[in-house]
């Protein structure tokens, strides 16, 4: 056990009048700078991210404000708290907290839930335990040192007398937050580190789980939207006469982003949308194309980049004519396409409240968006009285996938604009076609790489330029590799295609370029790619270990002949991951991915099975991008529209997988995203091993590769 002094800004005992009787503790672990939303919470107001409620019937309820999109916060966060509270896991009930505007900023992204909650949730459990211990000791007229907490009871050690928490909560509720409490040492954990089954799974196998689209309210209307297919275009003329003749169509109108059809059910709304005859005014992006963008980036002179990292004199060495390796890598636009399309349900109630149900990764941004939208509606005199902050309530439903798409709140703004015209609640549902064509995409990037090798074939200098729209050089600036002469540059080139965070964000495109180029240099210098990495990663022992673990388990360097291995590694979101892709050649399929071996060091492991799940999911997500999907834009519009032309990986294309979890005592890192970045370069490196040819453009079509 180690002591700590509770930080008063992080914990608050709420009076029982607010939430019923018992002991109620709110906690706040602040938020990182990237998530800060100015104006959403004032500096001294207390904004819990989670609450613990222990009532006098003995139930222990943990309210979690994170969004559950499959990555396990409904299980992981309560595990942290339960560990210190000394209650049995089976006695814990997990509920989702809806956003009260008083509760400040909530967003789930950047694999941050656990990283943010790690200390605070355990401390909250420890504080509650300490208060209960004090209450228990007092009621047994003993000193706290003579008592201990165990399995939901306070026990007087000498006599063995026990009092259950439920009998102590009302006394405990009157005690202040202690000056001091104690946290367990890692080796004392009994819940953390266990593969506890996920609390959200039982209702996900019987149809009871409520996603955004599953909200059903009395008299609810259904709406769908058509956006201008060309980015930034507008409506010139709409003929809705065919739509209006369809039985069940209730209304057709324009909002800021497009044309809305409201109907008695989703199918009728979709039919109404199809029947619209619209002339669009494509505007200034009428000739925009992704191939032009790629060409423009390819032709950028590297000197135009802004230097983000520099060490030694790469320029001198690269111009002195040693062995030079050079490559341009092109990575395409990618859509998120979570299986549940964008949707949001909104209701302007008679009592002046606006109620919103939405699968969002950021209830806070949803709230801000709803507020801004409704304010502008009021300004334009479209809506009657609509008052204070408290008049908006956001309920986050389960998310049918997120991957970063649901950090944007365009669908919330639309639902508010639509619902303000009706007395009834309205559910806005996008068709898959709108979802694919009106995403906030992974950027189209071009990386220009140059490297020089010394006479032993070892890299002595390299230059990396990343270019694209709203891109970042994070993760490669500085690069982890100790190459004495390094220069990293970035060139942001604005364009009209909407951009947004896509699972693992910058790490995805930067890892591919850096890690594949390292293999290109290894290949040119006749070095073993694994040995070269280990040698250059001396300052990054955790990444080194991950590489070694993945390589050993995958049987590196493989058997020559019919199977080929590629390896890559990348640190992101506080975790360190190495992956080995094994390609095999068969008569029937040609070259195919046979197996992926993944080793992750994510610090203290909270729930090994959830880590494994996230690695499996990340590998498949990344394989889809590396092998299959590519969004292209022509004449200002996305050419793909649904799964038939924007395919994702299927079960029969899924390789064997092995996940190795390297446990240690470092702070927990993220698990939702770090498994994505090493996959594409490991795959490309396996292709290089198999064919001697690098992969300069993604996705790669394995069946077209001749050996």
């Amino acid at each position, binding site marked *: 056990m180690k002591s700590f002094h509770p930080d008063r800004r992080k914990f608050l005992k709420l009076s029982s009048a607010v939430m019923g009787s018992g002991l109620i503790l709110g906690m706040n672990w602040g938020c990182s700078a990237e998530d800060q939303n100015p104006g959403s919470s004032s500096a001294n107001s207390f904004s819990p991210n989670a609450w613990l409620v222990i009532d006098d019937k003995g139930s222990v309820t943990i309210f979690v404000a994170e969004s559950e999109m*499959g990555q396990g916060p409904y299980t992981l966060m309560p595990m942290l708290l339960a560990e210190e509270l000394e209650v049995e896991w089976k006695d814990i009930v997990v509920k989702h907290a809806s956003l009260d505007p008083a509760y400040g900023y909530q967003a789930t992204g950047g694999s941050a839930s656990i990283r943010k909650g790690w200390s605070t949730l355990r401390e909250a459990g420890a504080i509650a335990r300490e208060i209960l211990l004090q209450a228990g000791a007092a009621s047994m007229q003993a000193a706290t040192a003579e008592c201990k907490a165990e399995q939901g009871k306070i026990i007087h050690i000498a006599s063995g007398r026990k009092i259950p928490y439920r009998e102590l909560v009302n006394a405990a509720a009157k005690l202040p937050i202690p000056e001091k409490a104690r946290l367990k040492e890692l080796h004392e954990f009994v819940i953390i580190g266990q593969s506890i089954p996920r609390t959200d799974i039982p209702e996900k196998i019987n149809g009871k789980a409520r996603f955004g689209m599953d909200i059903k309210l009395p008299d609810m209307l259904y709406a769908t939207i058509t956006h201008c297919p060309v980015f930034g275009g507008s409506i010139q003329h709409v003929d809705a006469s065919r739509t209006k003749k369809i039985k069940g169509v209730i209304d057709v109108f324009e909002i800021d982003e497009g044309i809305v059809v409201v109907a008695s059910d*989703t199918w009728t709304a979709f039919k109404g949308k199809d029947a619209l005859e619209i002339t669009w005014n494509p505007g200034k992006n009428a000739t925009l194309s992704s191939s032009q963008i790629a060409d423009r980036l390819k032709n950028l002179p590297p000197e135009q980049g802004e230097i983000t990292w520099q060490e030694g004199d790469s320029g001198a060495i690269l111009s002195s004519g040693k062995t030079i390796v050079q490559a341009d890598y092109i990575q395409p636009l990618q859509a998120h396409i979570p*299986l549940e399309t964008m949707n949001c349900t909104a209701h302007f109630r008679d009592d002046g409240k606006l109620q919103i149900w939405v699968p969002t990764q950021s209830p806070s941004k949803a709230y801000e968006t709803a507020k801004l939208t409704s304010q502008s509606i009021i300004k334009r005199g479209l809506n009657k009285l609509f008052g204070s902050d408290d008049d908006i309530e956001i309920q986050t439903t389960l998310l049918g996938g997120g*991957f970063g798409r649901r950090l944007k709140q365009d669908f919330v703004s639309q639902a508010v604009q639509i619902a303000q015209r009706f007395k009834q609640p309205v559910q806005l549902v996008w068709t898959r076609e709108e979802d694919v064509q009106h995403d906030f995409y992974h950027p189209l990037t071009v990386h220009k790489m140059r490297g020089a090798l010394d006479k032993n074939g070892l890299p002595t200098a390299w230059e990396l330029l990343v270019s694209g729209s709203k891109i970042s050089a994070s993760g490669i600036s500085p690069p982890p590799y100790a190459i004495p002469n390094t220069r990293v540059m970035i060139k942001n080139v604005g364009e009209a295609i909407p951009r947004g965070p896509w699972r693992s964000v910058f790490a995805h495109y930067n890892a591919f370029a850096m890690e594949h180029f390292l293999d290109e240099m290894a290949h040119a210098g006749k070095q073993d790619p694994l040995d070269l990495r280990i040698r250059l990663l001396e300052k990054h022992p955790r990444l080194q270990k991950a590489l070694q673990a993945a390589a050993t388990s995958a049987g590196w360097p493989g058997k020559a002949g019919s199977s080929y291995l590629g390896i890559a590694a990348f640190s992101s979101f506080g975790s360190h991951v190495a992956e080995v892709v094994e390609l095999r050649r068969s008569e029937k399929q040609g070259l195919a991915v046979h197996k992926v071996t993944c080793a992750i060091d994510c610090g203290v492991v909270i729930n090994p099975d959830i880590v494994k799940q996230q690695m499996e999911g990340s590998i498949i997500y990344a394989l889809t991008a590396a092998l299959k999907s590519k969004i292209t834009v022509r004449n200002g519009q996305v050419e793909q529209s649904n799964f038939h032309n924007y395919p*994702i990986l299927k079960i029969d294309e*899924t390789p064997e997988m092995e996940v190795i979890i390297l446990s240690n005592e470092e702070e927990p890192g993220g698990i939702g995203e770090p498994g994505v970045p090493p996959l594409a370069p490991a795959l490309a490196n396996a292709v290089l091993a198999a064919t001697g040819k690098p992969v300069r453009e993604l996705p790669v079509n394995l069946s077209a590769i001749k050996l």
Partner: protein
Amino acid sequence: MQIRINGSSITVDAPEDMPLLWVLRDLLNLTGTKYGCGMGACGSCTVLLDGEPVRSCITVLADVQDKEILTIEGLSKDNSHPVQQSWLELQVPQCGYCQSGQILSAVALLNETSDPDDEEINAAMSDVLCRCGTYPRIRKAIKHAAKTLRKGEET
């Protein structure tokens, strides 16, 4: 119109060309069946029609008369179906959105074959998409459920 869903007869007032998916979701509040593509390409909307998996987004009301429809809600009252049990045991779902379609497709497969091999699993499951990447666990869970079902038959 009368249709049979999960063992009971239900009257629905809807046009004959309305896809079953939206009848279930919007008229009957059976929201376990999901919309993913609307064109038969993702399998999220899979239901069993006389035991056969069909895509309810492209199956219209007129086609389901006189047939027995099974949706995820009708599989068991308490998650006790061997496929659900196996899904729990192997912790298959992530976001969960595709899982009704996955589970019902697996149920149909296991009704046909008591011991499916990888090829048979591929054939039955490859058009049911999962963006979260639960495929490795789906494969294991099907094999595990098959084993339980076979044991059940022996005893």
